């Protein structure tokens, strides 16, 4: 026991000795310095704001940069929130005194963290603050890099913007270390990758007299340099994106997606209406807010991922594939009833979009002409349960997993849905007729369509759509985002080839509904759709890819209230033509 006792006593003496050594250093060796700091001087900690990570396109073209800006802040330690002081600050930054005192109260993190009062203040104000610091005790300016979006509205829904953290965001992100007054990403990749982009603020320590006069750097506190945020490389191709936006310039509401079908990388993504990302750099006026939150147009809403639409005839790709896969037909099969413009099922008449009728057609021509009567008969034979099962296996009705939240799921109705909604006897078997041509309760997002079309183009792989290609942290440990195959289409290769043959005929035959998408020299495959819309003019769809032999690009076009699918096909054709010319004729 004596030995164990000795070990512990020796350890105790050692510990006490080390503590006393440290205290000796603090109190005796550096005592005078600390005494001065405690007596009338103090240490002021200033934030060295980390520059937010830059965002590039896939080739390294800069999409988002930073510009230095000045922020007027108050130091809670040194700033006495008296009426007089608040008024002085209010006059300095030209803001109402109430909002100053509200910020001082609600944004206080602790006694030492500067409270940002106004960001992006003009330089002359900073000069004034520097010269007359004695008039503004506890008011300082910080240099803060702020976002600049050189291409304004380009890819705005993908990039997103930044802004001061809101109260609900603060509650959500408090445990991630966000504090009141912080700048955070609000949408798009700025939001999703906020924690990677934001970097880490540093700090500098100043010794300051009681009256606020800065003496110089604090003696024994090393400055902590800020660490820049990670740089993002998107899958977006700046040229293709700009070109897509110019093709879409006249479109009021709609979507254009261009995707690499082999990787799921999104090359261009347009959602109209859009907005200028730079409007958030200044306080947003109420008029602008009204425009941005307009309930009819919703410019902030990313229709690519969040828009739920009836797929209309574009879903015939899948319905046709199901019928081929189930050996209900082959590609040359005719149906019992030729198209006379409508067909009776039970006591209800279902119309073809072409009221005068298509006559007798095989599968390929039914695809080309998008004959509804042909597909009604396929729907009857497939049956609701088989059809919904295949749709589920194509991953409709669920999120694609793109790293852009929020994402809509679309909707695939099932037998249970109809039973719950109308009662077991309240609905007719006829629903499948509407569903299999993409009408009725079915909803899809444009991105889901892009993924399924990509799968047809790439031999059946359902990919996870990719928006970020690469993440490069300042320490250089680059993270490449891999291609993720989520599942396989539930169709045989021959089935997909037959469907593609039909899609080629849509674009490249005289009877095809998508003729307008044809471009010289390259074979385009596609499918049009015209979604009936009870509230207004029809939505126009075109989905397709090119070249057929070696698919390089998938394109999805949706024009809200755009009339007929052939208009969407024309837009897609315009996009593809310019894409394959790649600006050879000098245009975007």
């Amino acid at each position, binding site marked *: 026991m004596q030995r164990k006792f000795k070990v512990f006593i020796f350890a105790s003496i050692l510990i006490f000795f080390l503590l006393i050594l440290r205290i000796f250093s603090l*109190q*005796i060796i550096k*005592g005078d*310095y600390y005494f001065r700091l*405690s007596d009338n001087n103090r240490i002021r900690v200033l934030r060295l704001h980390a520059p937010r990570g830059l965002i590039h396109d896939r080739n390294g073209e800069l999409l988002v940069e930073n510009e230095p800006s000045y922020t007027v802040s108050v130091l809670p330690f040194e700033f006495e929130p008296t009426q007089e002081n608040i008024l002085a600050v209010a006059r300095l930054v030209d803001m109402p005194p109430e909002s100053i005192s509200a910020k001082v109260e609600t944004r206080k993190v602790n*006694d030492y963290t500067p409270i940002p009062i106004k960001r992006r203040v003009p330089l002359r104000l900073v000069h004034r603050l520097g010269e007359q610091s004695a008039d503004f005790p506890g008011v300082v300016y910080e240099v803060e890099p702020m976002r600049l979006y050189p291409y304004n509205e380009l890819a705005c829904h993908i990039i997103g913007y930044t802004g001061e953290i809101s109260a609900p965001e603060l509650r959500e992100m408090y445990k991630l270390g966000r504090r009141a007054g912080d700048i955070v990403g609000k949408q798009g990749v700025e939001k999703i990758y906020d924690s*990677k982009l934001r970097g880490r603020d540093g700090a500098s320590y100043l010794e300051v007299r009681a009256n606020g006069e800065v003496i110089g750097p604090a003696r024994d506190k090393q400055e902590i340099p800020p660490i820049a945020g990670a740089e993002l490389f998107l899958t977006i191709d700046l040229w293709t994106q700009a070109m897509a936006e110019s093709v879409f310039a006249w479109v009021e509401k709609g979507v254009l997606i261009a995707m690499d079908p082999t990787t799921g990388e999104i090359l261009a993504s347009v959602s109209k209406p859009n907005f200028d990302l730079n409007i958030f750099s200044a306080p947003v006026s109420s008029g602008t807010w009204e425009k941005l939150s307009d309930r009819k147009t919703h410019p902030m809403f990313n229709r690519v991922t969040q828009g739920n639409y009836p797929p209309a005839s574009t879903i015939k790709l899948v319905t046709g594939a199901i019928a081929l896969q189930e050996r209900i037909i082959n590609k040359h099969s005719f149906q019992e009833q030729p198209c006379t413009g409508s067909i009776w099922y039970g006591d209800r008449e279902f119309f073809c979009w072409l009221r005068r009728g298509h006559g007798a057609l095989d599968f390929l021509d039914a695809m080309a002409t998008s004959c509804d009567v042909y597909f009604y008969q396929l729907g009857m034979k497939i049956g609701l349960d088989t059809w919904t099962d295949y749709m589920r296996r194509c991953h409709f009705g669920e999120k694609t997993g793109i790293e852009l939240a929020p994402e809509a799921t679309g909707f695939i109705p099932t037998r249970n849905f109809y039973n719950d909604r109308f009662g077991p006897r309240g609905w007719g078997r006829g629903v499948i007729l509407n569903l299999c041509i993409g009408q009725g309760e079915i909803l899809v997002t444009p991105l889901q369509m892009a993924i399924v079309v990509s799968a047809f183009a790439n031999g059946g792989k359902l990919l996870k759509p990719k928006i970020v290609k690469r993440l490069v942290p300042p320490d250089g440990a680059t993270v490449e985002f891999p291609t993720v195959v989520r599942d396989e289409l539930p169709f045989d290769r021959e089935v997909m080839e037959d469907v593609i043959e039909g899609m080629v005929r849509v674009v490249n035959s005289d009877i095809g509904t998508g003729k307008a998408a044809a471009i010289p020299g390259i074979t385009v495959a596609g499918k049009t759709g015209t979604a009936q819309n009870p509230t207004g003019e029809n939505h126009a769809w075109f989905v397709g890819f090119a070249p057929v032999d070696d698919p390089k690009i998938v394109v999805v076009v949706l024009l809200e209230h755009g009339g007929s699918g052939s208009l969407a096909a024309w837009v897609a054709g315009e996009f593809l033509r310019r894409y394959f010319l790649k600006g050879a004729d000098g245009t975007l």
Partner: protein
Amino acid sequence: MGRFDYILFFSVLILCAIGIMLIYGATYNSKYPWEKNLYKRQITYCIVGLVLLFIFWRLPMRLHYAVAYLYYIVILLILAGLFLFGGEGVKRWVDLGFFQFQPSEFAKLVIIFVISRYLMDTRTETSSFLRIALLGLLILFPFLFIINQPDLGTGMVFIVLLYSLLFWSDIKFPLFLILLSPIINVVFTVHWVSWALFFIAFSLFVLLSRVRFPVAIGAILGNLALGVAAPFFWRQLKDYQQERILVFLDPSRDPFGVGYQVLQSKITVGSGKMFGKGFLGGTQTNLAFLPVRHTDFIFAVLGEEFGFLGILLVLGLYFIVIYSAFRIARDAKGHFPRFVAAGLGTLLLFQVAVNVGMVVGLLPVTGLPLPFLSFGGSSVAIFMISTGLLLNIHSNKGEFV
């Protein structure tokens, strides 16, 4: 009753008195009215503590031995209740209306009783591995509840108590080192070179020592697995979780939060110089520069108002108390009382070292109070009870078999 250890008793009394003074000095001109009366509450706690001290001085050690596992079950139930019904956020206190009861403080004493009894009961068992595994399991449950509160400091106290009492028990040194190796291992994983050096040295030591071969191989493989898994686990953590650990180890990573507290704390202590600014003369403390100055950072107030000499006096008193505890452990005849005394000595040493180390910027900010000095009823109570237990063991050296 046998002899009464007056030196221990009066050292503790003086510490309590200094504590009350410092709490008064830290809060007498606070801008919050409720803070101004904290010293009165501390006086009450000390008086109640004194009563507890005398009760535990008189209670026979045999009683604690008999009900050690009962203590354990009760405290485990309270901790579980806190875990289940404590609501969101930090769940460290049970509100008794007149008193905010902090079960994790009492858990420290219970853990000492339980380890002591377990180590005594299983003394003659040969399978040392199973014996220690079961002990580890016994500590694990309260440990997890405490970590979840979250109270990392108290969790660390449990681990330190476990190792200290294993050291005081009959366990052989090589086995003790093997048990300690996972902790050393994790520390050395900061860089692969340091880890490789540790691993080679450890493997050689284990193979050359007289540990049975399967145990040695098991220890080497276990450490290898841990060394490989630790960086992997680290990468599994979310950014903010990593950040929390890094800030814990290095407060200056958070210059506006913990980092500033540590800076202010150093200024406060340093500004006291040799003789201090005198009682109630502290500017730094009175200016409310330092948060939680009456609890976790009370030592800074001591440094500012009473200077280096005041600190030497207080550390001297602590040394007397800690020395007494280990001396009492050495001289105790029974195993249970010896383990209890050694555990209490360890508890005191660890908390003083960690708290003072934190205040002077040497160690992470853990929120462990300074025994006898920090404001807080539960803390005062357990250290007064500890003193009572030490006095009891001292006066009944041979009574417990």
